[in-house]
Structure formats: structure tokens, C-alpha cells
């Protein structure tokens, strides 16, 4: 299992499971492919026939509105047949195992699975199961697994940063918030280090920083003011409501006091710094409304780019 399981024998992308270990050329190719797809959305007929006749199964074991919807739109704009399955929190509660579900859907001639699961590594399990059972022509795209990865979110973040900032190698990027539980943060960290971002910081209280995160190539700042200084890009993470009060944090108010993004704190970053957020936002918890809706916020363009990036991923993977 040591080989990167998402790359085929010629290094082509057959599944998208994580950004870790993905070569910079592959990432750049995905971002380049996404560019023309952005303009498709502005046309009267928002469709291309790249995935005509393909069956894309949105396999969501964990609830999601935004990611599922944008994947659905992406697949439909590529002319695929999209089937949405919301299996809920746990497959085992229905007595069917994850791999049984996959086998059944394969019997319905699925071409691609877009998978979201609460367990880290679930898409890897599906991909390796498809390989060992001789069905490697069925593709898996990870739409978020546990705390592990959310590669299409990472890619759309990279797309957004490249769109506004051009050269990664000159940038200082800060990721702020619940890094411990965040698959968005992990994917973005891998993507940015691969693209040779100059400096990458994570800003959070110690309770929300996982062990030895420095090994991933980031600098940890517990003080947000220090961490934001001279940043080009500020990425805010969502704080789940169940984590706002308890042993990780005392209250949303105190969290906002230290780690909420305000105009005053943002002033420490570069004057042209952009502000990103994967959504959905908690206004007044991790970000104040003035910043979220302010001139430097690129949060809504992120959503638009997200569809184009997902179209790029689906079309590239399906072609391999």
C-alpha cells in the first residue's frame, strides 16, 4: 500500500484521493484544465459533452449540501448522468458494509464514485477494493474523508490563490482555525507545499493543532496577530459548533476574541491580501461580517471556481 494509490502505472491520475504526493505538474494541469470551464458557466448553454453517457454516483455517507451540489453541477455540466445517494451517517447502521454498497453500485454500472465519508481513508479503501477486484476502470473522487483530505477543496483554493496572486513561490499563506479536525487544511497544506509556496503558517490555539504538523512544512503561530503579519492569503477554517464549547475551547466568544478575523487584525496582513473560507461560514465566530463581505473577501468566487475545478477533476480522471 506504499505506492501512491491514485496514480496509474504511467503516473496518470486514475482516482483523486489526496493532494499528498501529487506531482506539481498534475496539480497545474488540473488548474489549467479548469480555466476554460469557468467561462462555460457564463454561457447560455452551460454544458459540454465530455462525460456524456457516464454514470457518476455521488456517494455521501456524511451530510453535505455545498460540496454535493457543486459536484452535481460539475458532473451535469459535463453531461454525465448523476445519481445522488445520501446514505447518512453510518453505513453499518443499515447492516450493509461500505464495500457491499460499492459492489452493488458497480453492478449498476457506475463509472465514477464521488465519495464523502466520516472516516479518514474510506475513499482509499474503495479505490484499493476496486483495484483488487479488477475494476480499476471505475474511478473514485474523494469529496472529503474524516479529518484526512478534501482534495477538490484544496484544488479550488489553489485555483483561487493562483487567480488572484499568480506565483505561489512568492506568497505567505496563513491558515487559521481548527486545523486538528480539518481535512480542508490538510489538503491545502499539501497543495501549497507542492506548489512551493514561500511560507505557510497555521494559526490556532494549541488544542486545535495536531501533533508534529511542522513536519508537513508549516510554521505554527498561536498568536493570530503575529501569524497574519505580511500575509498575502488568509484562509479561515470553519469551526464546528460542537467544538465551540467544551474541552477544546471555552466559548465561541472567546474564540472570536483570539482567532476571529476582523478588519483590525486583517490590517496586519499585506494591503492586497485576500481572504478565503471553505464555507459554510460562522459569522461572528471565525470571521466578522465586515471582512466576510469586504473588498478583500474572495469567498464567493471560490464557490464559482469550485465548480470549474471539479469539472476539471472529473473530466481528467474519467479520461484516464
Amino acid at each position, binding site marked *: *500500500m506504499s505506492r501512491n494509490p491514485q496514480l496509474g502505472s504511467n503516473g496518470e491520475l486514475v482516482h483523486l484521493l489526496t493532494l499528498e504526493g501529487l506531482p506539481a505538474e498534475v496539480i497545474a494541469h488540473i488548474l489549467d484544465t479548469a480555466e476554460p470551464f469557468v467561462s462555460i458557466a457564463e454561457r447560455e448553454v452551460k454544458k459540454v459533452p465530455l462525460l456524456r453517457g457516464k454514470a457518476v454516483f455521488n456517494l455521501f455517507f456524511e451530510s453535505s449540501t455545498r460540496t454535493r451540489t457543486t459536484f452535481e453541477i460539475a458532473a451535469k455540466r459535463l453531461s454525465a448522468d448523476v445519481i445522488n445517494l445520501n446514505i447518512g451517517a453510518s453505513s453499518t447502521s443499515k447492516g450493509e458494509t*461500505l464495500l457491499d454498497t460499492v459492489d452493488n453500485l458497480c453492478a449498476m454500472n457506475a463509472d465514477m464514485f464521488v465519495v464523502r465519508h466520516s472516516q*479518514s481513508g474510506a475513499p482509499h479503501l474503495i479505490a484499493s*477494493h476496486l483495484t483488487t477486484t479488477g475494476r480499476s476502470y471505475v474511478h473514485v473522487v474523494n469529496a472529503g474523508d474524516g479529518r484526512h483530505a478534501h482534495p477538490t477543496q484544496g484544488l479550488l483554493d489553489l485555483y483561487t490563490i493562483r487567480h488572484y496572486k499568480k506565483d505561489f513561490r512568492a506568497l505567505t499563506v496563513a491558515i487559521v482555525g481548527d486545523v486538528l479536525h480539518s*481535512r480542508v487544511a490538510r489538503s491545502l497544506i499539501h497543495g501549497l507545499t507542492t506548489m512551493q509556496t514561500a511560507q505557510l503558517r497555521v494559526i490556532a490555539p494549541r488544542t486545535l493543532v495536531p501533533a508534529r504538523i511542522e513536519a508537513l512544512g508549516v510554521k505554527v503561530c498561536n498568536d493570530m496577530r503575529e501569524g497574519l503579519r505580511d500575509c498575502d492569503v488568509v484562509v479561515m477554517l470553519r469551526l464546528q459548533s460542537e467544538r465551540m464549547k467544551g474541552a477544546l475551547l471555552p466559548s465561541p466568544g472567546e474564540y472570536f476574541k483570539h482567532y476571529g478575523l476582523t478588519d483590525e487584525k486583517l490590517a496586519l496582513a499585506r494591503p492586497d491580501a485576500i481572504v478565503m473560507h471553505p464555507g459554510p461560514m460562522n459569522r461572528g465566530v471565525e470571521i466578522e461580517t465586515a471582512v466576510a463581505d469586504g473588498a478583500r473577501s474572495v469567498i464567493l468566487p471560490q464557490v464559482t471556481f469550485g465548480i470549474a475545478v471539479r469539472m476539471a477533476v472529473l473530466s481528467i480522471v474519467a479520461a484516464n
Partner: protein
Amino acid sequence: MKIEIADGRVVDSVAGIDRVATLYIDAGRIVGIGEAPENWRADRILDARGCVVCAGLVDLSARLREPGLEHKATLESELAAAVAGGVTSLACPPDTDPPLDEPGLVEMLKHRARTLNLAHVYPVGALTVGLRGEALTEMSELAEAGCVAFSQADIPLVDTQVLLRAMQYAGTFGHRVWLRPQDAHLARGGVAHDGEVATRLGLPSIPVSAETIALATILALVRESGVPVHLCRLSSAAGVAIVRAAKEEGLPITCDVAVHHLHLADTDIGWFDPLANLTPPLRSTRDRAALRAGAADGTIDVICSDHAPVDDDGKQVPFGEAETGATGLELLLPLTLKWAAEDHVPLPEALERITRAPACVIGIGQATLAAGNPADICVFDPQQAWTVGRQSLNSQGKNTPFLGLEVIGAVRWTLVGGEVVHQRSGED
């Protein structure tokens, strides 16, 4: 039945023997080494040239899955695995369904094991009723039924007052207490070592302090009560250091490590390999090095298989949902030999960790080949390589992170009570 094990390298640290000799067995006992008894005429001769002849292996932790979990394994399958691995005596932890907290369950288990006439089975009784950590079990009744020690298996005893009392009560009657040091709170929800790998893979983690805090608690209670404790399954460098210091202090403790942990680290999880989901979690390569050194210098007394047969249903799920554990009875010997060869530990000393030392922890005598002792013997070829695979394992649990690995050291014959209970196919 008179059996002669001819011309093998007889290794026995207790008797201080390490030489090529013939072993003579009659009526279930060893009757001579090197010199045949008078009027000797063997009914069967086992040609052990090139082989090592040692006391049968003794394993401190082999889950047989009976009662209650027969879909994973049965006594038949696991005792066959034991003797195929050269294990002639094993202790089984109480985390069955129901747990081993009543004499009837223990008697049934002992009876079933006796009928099969393979390896000796020594049940470990539950320290508390239902392993719930609240009320003490009837330890004396359980001991009479056959329990050799009392433990909580992998379920931590959260209430330290109950823990102290359990130790005091057990100590009153000389019952042995085995504890696996893990703090329940720090380990809550965790599935991997708190380090770079868990961070990269986004796996909920268990910090080393889950082990060191529990060790400190247990050792404080040992100091307080004077009751000896055997510590199960160390996993960390810090844990080894604490045990080393406690032994220097003179505390009455012994400890063991699972053989998997001498060879694997969290990096072996790779891309979420559920086979590497073990209890305790595989820790860093630094921790592994300390465990190996601890086993070599005797800080760690015993190496055990921590045998836990898990079926495919338990492993073909995402890493965090996978049942923990791996099959180990048939790998205890080759993996111990591998460790010894790599770290230049002399063979007699390595064998001591899986024969005499665990026998002392269980309290079943010496596990020695000296004349007069029961003929529980393992004869293995120290050169023969074999590949760990589903076909080559007798255990019903085929899941181990070592699948596909070529190991060296194959058991030729296993004798229990002077009878050949296992012979490698192709031998006569």
C-alpha cells in the same frame, strides 16, 4: 510412547545447555539428554539434525475467541495454530463474550481445551465483574477453576480506588494481576499514535502520555500496596524508561511487549492499512527502537504474540472502524528470531523471552528441558524460510500486517506431554 529427538541443537537457558544432543522422552517426560536411559528403544525417532530443540513456547496473550466469538475463531483452529507455531502453553485474556468472570465459563474453557489435547490453556480471569471496573470478581473461585492471573484485558480500569482494592485483594491470596497501562481518557476515540503519521492521515490519535500516566498510576499503587503486577504490551520509549527505572527501584514488576511492536511502527499504516490497526497503537520508529532495546536488555521480560484473530469483515472497513489486532501465534517464533538476528541477541536469550520468562509470569514452572520435566518441546529449523500467507496460517484469523513477508524459522515438530501434536507437512 518412547520418542527420541535425535541430534538437534538443544538450547535451554534454565539448564544451561546449548549443544548438539539427543533428547529422550518417555511417558510424557524428558528422561535424558545426550545419554540414553538403560535399555532404551525408541518407538519413534525424530531426526532433528540442523534443528533447534527448545522448550515449548509460552505465550502470554492469545485470544481464542471462546466463548461467544466463535465466528472469528474456535479453540480447535487457534490451538492448532498454537502448536503449529511451537506454542505449547498459552494464557488467554478474559475479553470473551461474556467475559471470563465466572468459574463455570473458565471450567468449560479448560475442559474444551483438555479434550482437544493440543496446547495447554491458562485462562486469565476478569479482575472486575464484566470487566466493568466496578466490583471485584470471585478471584479465589476463578483461580480454583483454573485462572492463573486476573486482568482487565484491553479495557482500562478508570476508577483508581477500585484498582487499588483489586490489587490488594488479589495480593491477599497471591493471585497475579496483569494490567495493560492505558489511560482511558487520553486514549478515547484514538486509533493511531499521536505523531506525524496520524496528523498526515487525519486519524484520531493516542498520545504516549496515555501509557506513561497509566504506568505512573499503576506503579504508585504497586509502591503503596506492595502487590506485584505484570505490565502488558508496552508501546513507547517513555514507557520502557519508566519500567526500567521502576525495576531499578526494586518494584515487583514484570512486563511484556507484543512481537508486532518490535518490527512495526506507525509508518507501516501506509495509506490506511487496517491490518496495521493494533492495540496499543504502533508508535514511532524511535519507540520501536526502545522496545527492541528493552527486550534485549531484559527491561522487557517477555515477548508475546498478542494473538487476536480478526475476520475479513473486521478488517475490510475504513482504518478507524477496523477491529484491532492481528493473528500472531504462528509468527511469535519467526518474528522473535528476526528481532534476535537483527539486533545480535544470542539465541538462548531470545528463546528465554518466549519460554522461561513467560512461564514464570504465568507461574507454571520453568519451561525447561531438564530431565524429569514434562516433554513440552518445540523443534524448529532456524534456517528454513517460509512466506506468511493465508494458506500457510492455521489460525482462523488470516489478518496480519506481515502477510506476504518471508520469515525464517519453521517449526518442524511440537510435542505436548510427550506426544507429537504438530508436524510440519513433509516431515515424518
